């Protein structure tokens, strides 16, 4: 029961901190989960990878964290925690949006948050990569996938499949 409450609190507040999209809260999610003693950073990275291999929005890692911590109820609570507060806020703001959409302050706030979002994305990338890459070949795989994904429009699922295949044959 305590775990369910802690999951709801964790994801409920991360939902409202995720400016610029879900991945910006990954470092904080990892930090709090590890501090809570729920799992190690490497285990979190494995769950993140698993979530990337499923279709749908990229915040499904919350479902997997909840599942690991407290089974099916945990999965549902964590997912609801991640989607409810921001969805409620969006619906509340919907009717006001027409009024402040073209306001100068709206554009300034949105432009001003961009570098912060970029810094948070870079932090998320480094922390996830650090947790996942426990050997030189794995780190090289991360660099290769990052390079191909950055430079081409290849479907991410091919890169994930290639990574898993290289793992199976023992190449990384």
């Amino acid at each position, binding site marked *: 029961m305590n775990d369910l409450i802690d999951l709801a609190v964790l994801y409920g507040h991360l*939902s*409202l*901190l995720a400016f610029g*999209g*879900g991945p910006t*809260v*990954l470092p*904080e999610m990892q*930090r709090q989960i590890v501090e809570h003693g729920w799992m190690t950073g490497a285990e979190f*990275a*494995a*769950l*993140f990878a*698993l*979530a*990337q*291999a*499923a*279709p*749908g929005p990229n*915040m499904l890692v919350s*479902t997997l964290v909840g*599942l690991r911590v407290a089974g*099916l109820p945990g999965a549902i609570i964590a997912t609801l925690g991640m989607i409810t507060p*921001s*969805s*409620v*806020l*969006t*619906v509340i703001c*919907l009717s006001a949006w027409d009024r402040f*959409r073209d306001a100068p302050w709206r554009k*300034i706030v949105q432009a*001003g948050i*961009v*570098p*912060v979002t*970029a*810094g948070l*994305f*870079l*932090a998320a*990338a*480094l*922390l*996830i990569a650090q947790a996942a*890459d426990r050997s030189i070949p794995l780190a090289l795989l*991360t660099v290769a*996938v990052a390079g191909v*994904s950055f430079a081409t429009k290849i*479907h*991410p699922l091919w*890169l*994930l499949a*290639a*990574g898993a*295949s*290289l*793992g*199976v044959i023992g190449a990384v």
Partner: protein
Amino acid sequence: MAASEPTPPPSVAAIFAGFFSVGIIGFGGVLPITRRMIVEQRQWMNGKEFTDILGLCQFLPGGNVINLAAAVGHRFRGIPGALAGLAGLMCAPMAIVIALGLFYGHFQDEPLVRRAFAGLAAAASGLIVAMALKIAAPLRTDLLGGLVALVTFAAIVWLRLPLLATMAVMAPLGIALAWRRAR
């Protein structure tokens, strides 16, 4: 095309079905698929209306497509519409990821599964590295913006500061910077 003909607003069931189709096929970046579904396939909105409502969803915190499902559903059918959009978007991916999670939990000590997941995790982190580089790339020519990004990065990665405290300092800094430029 037939942009001038008003189409009747989608039913709650149609909202569920539309976002269900997005959830089930959307791998790594659901946004382009969502746009295609709403604007081209089902013609619930035109391109401008979609961009408009997306603007709100990107402005507010939370997953962009999750906010979009709530906003689009609510615009057409109120609270039931918002719930239908969210449920449609999330139910299939949640079921799939829970199945994957149970499988992984059961077999994670098998050497083969362990190796496959090590490779998968390394590749998945490569994807998010690429995503981060794409977002940060425009800051190469923006010294002060780049500095804000760097300090944010350092606060999280090296100083291990909580996100709330970091945002409370860095977001006003970034906004002040944008405000000075806009004057």
